């Protein structure tokens, strides 16, 4: 049973279409990421949900009741802004109390709830500070506490971690996820960062040009991308230009492969770099193994792994090897192999 439901949502600005047709069902307590590049319509979708902009078409339901045209202040949604949007003229405690005060709760109850909310985000001692006296991570937590203290029906997070440095972002990811899980709050998370989407959410909706390109679990999205765009945007992939013989077998870099593909005019085979291995030329490949040969151009040490750039008859590809394992010398001729099932065919886009 879906708790939050978007159907056929559309937003146009003049002739430009920001959100074309977005439909999405979210179960109670579920965390869903809207993942996509900038301009894909993910923030516009979130703002329509919060009532900050009005859709041209479509419908939004929460818990069975339609809220498509309900003004923002009657929606009871917790919104964490990318810039945090803390009120600079109020203390941390007043910021967190704001939503409760607008709901006319008694003073004692507000004080208690503010204290609990600040404890939840581990900011107990900072209640009387002004937002400008806090670090980025602390401001982020105040924004989260302020959004959660009103017991919103849905929590909306707009690129909430993008202003933090890498290390802090990592901490906040786990913190937000564990708070979200323990409260069981339905959450929609807008991000362009795939790691954020993969680690923080139950499901991911990948958005492209105002539409949802694919929706599924993080594993689904990563292992079984539905479109070429998803395969390119989520994780990294080698795109090998492919030819298809009359028997349906695929030829890559001039070598026949144990891979079949649907009939398409022109297509590429996508393979994740870490699914590829490098073998000496002399070593034969197994039955269900795809294999191409080439020359090692360059090895790039990236810390936890090494990227090996291989050039062959059909172009270049990158193999990711665990660092510490023996790396083929630059200039040597090698075979690159991978399991046939890790080959994903996608039609080439018309230029």
């Amino acid at each position, binding site marked *: 049973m879906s708790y939050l439901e978007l159907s056929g949502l559309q937003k146009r600005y003049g002739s430009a279409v920001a959100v074309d047709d977005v439909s999405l069902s979210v179960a109670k307590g579920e965390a869903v990421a809207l993942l996509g590049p900038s301009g894909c319509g993910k923030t516009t979708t979130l703002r329509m949900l*919060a*009532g*900050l902009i009005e859709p041209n078409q479509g419908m939004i339901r929460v818990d069975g009741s339609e809220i498509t045209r309900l*003004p*923002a*202040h*009657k*929606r*009871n*949604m*917790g*919104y964490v*802004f990318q*810039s945090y*949007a*803390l*009120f*600079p*003229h109020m203390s941390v405690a007043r910021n967190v109390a*704001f*939503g409760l005060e*607008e*709901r006319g709760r008694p003073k004692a109850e507000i004080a208690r709830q503010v204290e609990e909310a600040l404890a939840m985000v581990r900011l107990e001692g900072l209640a009387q500070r002004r937002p400008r006296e806090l670090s980025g991570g602390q401001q982020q937590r105040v924004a989260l506490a*302020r*959004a959660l203290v*009103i017991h919103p029906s849905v929590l909306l997070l707009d690129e909430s971690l993008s202003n933090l440095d890498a290390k802090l972002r990592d901490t906040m990811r786990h913190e937000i996820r564990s708070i979200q899980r323990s409260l069981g709050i339905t959450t929609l998370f807008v991000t362009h960062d795939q790691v954020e989407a993969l680690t923080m959410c139950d499901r991911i909706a990948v958005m492209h040009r105002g539409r949802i390109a694919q929706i599924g679990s993080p594993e689904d999205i990563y292992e079984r991308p539905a479109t070429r765009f998803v395969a390119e945007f989520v994780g990294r992939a080698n795109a090998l230009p492919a030819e298809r013989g009359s028997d349906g077998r695929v030829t890559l870099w001039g070598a026949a492969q144990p891979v079949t593909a649907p009939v398409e005019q022109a297509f590429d085979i996508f393979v994740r770099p870490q699914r590829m291995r490098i073998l000496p030329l002399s070593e034969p490949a197994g039955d269900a193994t795809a294999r191409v040969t080439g020359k090692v151009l360059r090895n790039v040490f990236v810390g936890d792994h090494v990227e090996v750039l291989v050039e062959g008859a059909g172009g270049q590809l990158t193999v990711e090897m665990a660092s510490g394992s023996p790396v083929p010398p630059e200039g040597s001729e090698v075979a690159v192999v991978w399991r046939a099932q890790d080959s994903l065919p996608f039609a080439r886009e018309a230029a």
Partner: protein
Amino acid sequence: MTASARLPLLLIPAALFVLAIYAWPTLLLMRNAFNEVGPTGAMVEAWSLKTAADTFADGFTFELTLNSIWLSLSATAIALALSYPLSLFLFRTDSRWKGLLAVIAIMPMLISSVVRVFGWLAILGDRGLVNGLLQSLGLISAPLKLVFNWTGVTIGLAESIMPYMILALLAGFGQLDRTLEEASRSLGASPFRTFMRVTLPLSLPAIALAAGLGFVLSMSAYITPKLLGGGRVFVLATEIFEQATTNTNWPVAAVLAIYTLVLLLALLALSNVVAKGLKR
């Protein structure tokens, strides 16, 4: 010399200019305030406080002070009530006419105040636009007295300080971030509550700046009270001018001028204290 040590050199031209045309005359003015006026009306060189004592003993000085403050307060209040919503609109609008609208809003600054005053006479006079319209509609039988009195001066002054106040408001709105209003809405505050709790408090610095500027400009305005007041409106600025030119009583003019300056500084200091109190 390092670049930062050379930096103050940039101040020299302005400093020389101000010294020549402001500091020196001000010193002469102060000197004049200690002179006396003889029985013939001729100025007598002296170092006495007699002129100042006589001026402050005169009840008219007190009346002028109240007139000036009251006129400046009302003109500033009217101008603020008109320019705050207007500036908020200009600050917020995404209209492609924004630049043009801003220019129109500050256009009165480009017109000489004498010309502007005659414009108001044409609008507010006995046979002016307003009275003509009201009479032809049959709403009034005799023309309303809208000029050559305090009403006319207040209206004219409010209009003349508005462009400056609009510019001050626009410059002071820096902190006003639309996301903060969205945050307020998302937390359950209606548009009106959002204005009261977020927009207005965050624009208080801008309001203080604009009001201070409007007040100072009103206190020192001479042409508008003189021409729109029709000789019936007496404020410090008009009196200083009368004393200096018509009466050629320089010592009294000097005393009043210094008094007005001190009064303004004191009022500004007071408003500063109040503004700090508001910020907490």
